[in-house]
C-alpha cells in the first residue's frame, strides 16, 4: 500500500446539523486509490450521514469534499455516480424483477433504430460477470439469485458506471460465510485495479480481514484514522465505545446476592440462521445486561424472547411452568414487556395521548369487550406518570411532543401498567439527551428493587455496569460470555466483545 498516495476522495471538516443535533462535527476522512478503508462506529455515530454526504444524498453544512484533489459538490447520488463514486447498499438497490443483464445495462442499453439489442446486452453482461468469477445465466431474473450474487451484480454496475471510489455499505450483513469469502475476493480484485473502497460493517473480523485502514466515528466526532496493522481488536472496540479503561469506574457493582427465585428461564432458545441457541435464567429482582456490538444478535435475542420472531427451538418457562410464546400477544399474556430500540418506529404512537399510550397494552390484554373506563384510564396513567416522573403538560397531549427521555418513560409506564414479571429494554437510553440517561438508569435500578426481572440491552457500558447483576456478551449471534460480580467492568466487557474477533479463526 502506498502510504504517500494522494487520496482519490477526501472530506475535510464535514459538519452536518439536523435541527439542533450535530450529526457530524468537523469530520475528516480520506480514501486512497487501491486501499480498502473501513468506517466504523456504533449506531448514531454518524457513519451513514458521512456516507450520504460523500455520495451526494445529503449536502454538508460545513467542510468540503475533494475528488482527485479538486473540490466537488454532488447534488444527488446520480451526480456522484457520474463523477466516479458508486455505492452498494446492504439492501441491494437493483431491480429484482428484471434480468441480471438488464440490471447491468439499464439506461445505457445499446440500441439500433431505437430497438434494444438484447443479444449484445446478454453477451456483454455474461462477459462482465465472468470477470467477477461468476458463471451465471444473465437472462434470469436478478431476484432468483442469492443476495451474494445480487451484491456482486450491484458492485459490477457501480464499478462500470463510476470506477473511482466504491462505497460498500454493510454488504455482508445478510451473507453466509462462503458468500462473504466470495465477496471479499471480488473486493480484493477491485482494490488491485486501483479503486478506493470504503467498507462499512459491524463485523470486526471482516474489517481486519479486508481493510488496510480504519476510521472510527463516535457521536458525530472523528475518533481517529489508523493503519489496521498497528491496531488490535480491543483497541478498535475501545475507540468505538469510547471507554477510557485507565480511568476505571467508581460506581459500586450491583450486589449479586440480592435477588429472588428464578422467574423466567429460556433454555436452548434459537432460530436457525438468526440466533444460535442460548440458555438464560432471570431471577426476581435481577437485571441482566446484554453487551455486544451492533449486529451481534442483541436485538435478535430480545425479539425471540418476546415472540416477535418465532423461535424454532428451545423452551420458555415462567415461574417453573412451561409457556408457549409464538407471538407478542402470548408474550404479553405471560407477563413479558418489551421496550424496543427504535421508539419512533416500534414503540410509541406519536399521535395518541400520553394516557392512551400508557393504557394501550393493558387494554390489549383485557380484550375488546372490557374497555377501561375513562376514570380508570386517568387513574392508571396518572399513577405511572407520577411514579416515573413523566413530565408532560397534561396527559392528553400527543406523545410525539414529549422529549425522548419522557417518551421512553411512557413506554416503560405502558408495560408497568401491565404488571409484568419480566421486562426487556432495548437501548433504553438511545437518542435521549445525556442528562436524562442517569434518570433512566435510576428507574431501572428502582424496578429491580421492586422485584422485576429485567433484561437490558445497551451499548453504554458505564450504564450496563451501573445496573446489571450479570452481563451476557453477544458476538456473531451467539452468547459468548456471562460475566459476574467483579468481572462486571467496562474493561472486561470490552475484552469479551473483542475477543477472538481477529481474522481467520472461524467460529461458525
Amino acid at each position, binding site marked *: 500500500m502506498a502510504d504517500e498516495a494522494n487520496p482519490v476522495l477526501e472530506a475535510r471538516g464535514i459538519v452536518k446539523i439536523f435541527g439542533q443535533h450535530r450529526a457530524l462535527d468537523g469530520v475528516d476522512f480520506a480514501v486512497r486509490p487501491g486501499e480498502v478503508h473501513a468506517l466504523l462506529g456504533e449506531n448514531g455515530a454518524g457513519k451513514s450521514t458521512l456516507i450520504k454526504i460523500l455520495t451526494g444524498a445529503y449536502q454538508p453544512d460545513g467542510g468540503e469534499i475533494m475528488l482527485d484533489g479538486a473540490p466537488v459538490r454532488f447534488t444527488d*447520488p*446520480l451526480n456522484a*455516480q457520474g463523477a466516479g463514486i458508486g455505492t452498494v447498499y446492504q439492501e441491494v*438497490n*437493483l*431491480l*429484482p*424483477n*428484471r434480468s441480471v443483464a*438488464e*440490471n447491468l445495462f*439499464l*439506461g445505457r*442499453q445499446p*440500441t439500433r433504430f*431505437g*430497438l*434494444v439489442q*438484447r443479444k449484445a446486452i446478454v453477451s456483454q453482461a455474461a462477459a462482465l460477470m465472468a470477470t467477477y*468469477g*461468476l*458463471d*451465471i445465466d444473465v437472462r*434470469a*431474473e436478478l*431476484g*432468483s*439469485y*442469492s443476495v*451474494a*450474487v445480487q451484491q456482486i451484480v450491484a458492485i459490477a*454496475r457501480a464499478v462500470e458506471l463510476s470506477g473511482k471510489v466504491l462505497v460498500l455499505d454493510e454488504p455482508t450483513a445478510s451473507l453466509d460465510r*462462503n*458468500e462473504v469469502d*466470495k465477496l471479499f475476493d471480488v473486493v480484493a480484485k477491485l482494490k488491485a485495479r486501483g479503486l478506493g473502497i470504503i467498507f462499512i460493517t459491524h463485523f470486526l473480523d471482516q474489517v481486519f480481514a479486508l481493510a488496510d485502514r480504519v476510521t472510527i466515528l463516535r457521536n458525530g466526532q472523528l475518533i481517529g484514522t489508523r493503519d489496521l496493522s498497528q491496531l488490535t481488536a480491543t483497541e478498535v472496540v475501545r475507540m468505538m465505545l469510547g471507554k477510557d479503561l485507565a480511568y476505571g469506574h467508581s460506581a459500586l457493582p450491583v450486589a449479586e446476592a440480592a435477588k429472588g427465585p428464578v422467574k423466567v428461564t429460556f433454555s436452548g432458545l434459537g432460530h436457525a440462521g438468526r440466533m444460535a441457541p442460548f440458555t438464560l435464567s432471570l431471577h426476581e429482582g435481577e437485571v441482566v445486561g446484554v453487551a455486544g456490538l451492533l449486529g451481534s444478535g442483541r436485538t435478535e435475542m430480545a425479539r425471540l424472547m418476546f415472540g416477535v420472531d418465532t423461535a424454532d427451538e428451545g423452551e420458555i418457562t415462567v415461574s417453573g411452568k412451561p409457556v408457549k410464546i409464538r407471538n407478542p400477544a402470548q408474550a404479553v399474556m405471560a407477563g413479558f414487556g418489551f421496550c424496543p430500540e427504535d421508539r419512533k418506529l416500534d414503540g410509541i404512537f406519536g399521535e395518541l395521548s400520553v394516557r392512551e399510550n400508557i393504557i394501550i397494552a393493558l387494554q390489549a390484554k383485557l380484550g375488546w369487550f372490557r374497555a377501561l373506563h375513562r376514570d380508570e384510564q386517568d387513574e392508571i396513567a396518572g399513577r405511572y406518570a407520577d411514579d416515573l416522573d413523566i413530565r408532560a403538560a397534561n396527559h392528553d397531549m400527543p406523545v410525539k411532543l414529549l422529549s425522548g427521555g419522557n417518551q421512553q418513560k411512557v413506554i416503560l409506564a405502558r408495560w408497568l401498567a401491565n404488571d409484568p414479571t419480566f421486562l426487556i429494554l432495548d437501548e433504553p437510553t438511545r437518542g435521549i439527551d445525556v442528562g436524562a440517561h442517569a434518570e433512566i438508569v435510576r428507574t431501572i435500578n428502582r424496578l429491580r428493587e421492586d422485584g422485576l426481572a429485567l433484561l437490558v440491552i445497551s451499548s453504554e457500558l458505564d450504564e450496563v455496569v451501573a445496573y446489571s447483576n450479570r452481563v451476557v456478551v453477544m458476538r456473531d449471534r451467539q452468547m459468548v460470555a456471562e460475566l459476574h460480580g467483579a468481572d462486571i467492568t467496562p474493561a472486561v466487557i470490552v475484552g469479551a466483545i473483542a475477543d477472538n474477533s481477529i481474522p481467520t479463526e472461524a467460529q461458525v
Partner: protein
Amino acid sequence: MNRAFRPLLATTAIFVLAYIAAVLQYPSMLSTRVLGNFLTDNAFLGIAAVGMTFVIISGGIDLSVGAVIGFSTVMIATLIMWAGLHPFVAFAITLVVSAGFGAVMGAAIHYLKVPSFIVTLAGMFLARGGASVLSPDSIGIKHEVYTTISRSYILLPGGGRLTVIAMIMLTVFVVGIVLAHRTRFGSYVYALGGNETSAALMGVPVARTTILVYTLSSTLAGIAGIVFSLYTSAGYSLSALGVELDAIAAVVIGGTLLTGGYGFVAGTFIGVMLQGLVQTYIVFDGTLSSWWTKIVIGGLLFMFILLQRLVFSASTPRKKAFRKS
C-alpha cells in the same frame, strides 16, 4: 424458465381448453367468422387494455380509460357533425386532447405524489362529465369515411372478416409488444414497477417515464374511442361505461402482476380474447343472461389473483448458489 411466464402459460392453456370445450358443444364456433367477430367486437377494449398493461406494469392504475373513450366518441361526433370537420382531422384533434389529458394526469401523479388511483379517478369524473356537457344525447355520425371504413375488410379463408378496426387493434398490440420488450422506455416502465427508489438511483428518468406511461394510456384510450365511434357510428357520453374495469381484468388475467413489475402485452391479448370467448359462448347458448359474462370474468379474475399469489409469494424465488467456476 422465468416464473413470470407461468401465469401467461396458464391463461393461454385456459383459453385453448375453453375454446375446445366451446367448440365441442357448438361446433360452429370453430370458424374464422367467429374469430373475426371476436377481434372486431373487442377491438376498443383490446386497444385500451394495451395502455392499461403499461400503467399496471409501472405500478399504477388508470381508472379514466372508459371515460376517455366515451369523451373521445362525443368529441369526434361533435367535431364531425356540428363543426363539419373531416373525420381524420377530428381524429387527430381527439388524439392530441386525450394525450394531453394523460400527460396532465401523469404529471399530477409524479409531482404531487398523489396515488394514481385518486388522480385517474378524478380524471374519470372530469372526462365523463366533460362528455355529458358537450352532448348529453347520442349523436349519430354520418360520413362517407365511416361508411367506407365499416365496409372495408380482408376476407379470411372460411368467410371470416378481418375488419379495419380489428386490424387497428392488432397493430396496437404489435407496437405495444415491441415498445414493452425492445425499447429503453419499456425497460424503464418495468423498472418503475419493480422498485421506484432503485429505479431512480439507477438513473431511470422517473418523471418522464411516469408522464409518458399515462400519456400512452390516454392516447390509446383516444384510439379506442375512435374505434368505438367507427364500431357504433355514434358518439355518446355514456358509452364504454366500466371499460376500464374490463381492461384491468384483461390485463390481470393476461398474467400481469397488479402490483407492477411483471407482465406481458401479449398476455393482455389473450385476456381480451378470453373475455370475448365467454361472451360469444353466451350468445351461442342463447338462454343465459349476458350478465353471466361478468360472473365468469369475476371467477377467472379471482382465480388468477390466487395463482399469482402462489407463483410470486408462496414460492419464493429459488436461490441459485454460486456455480463452481
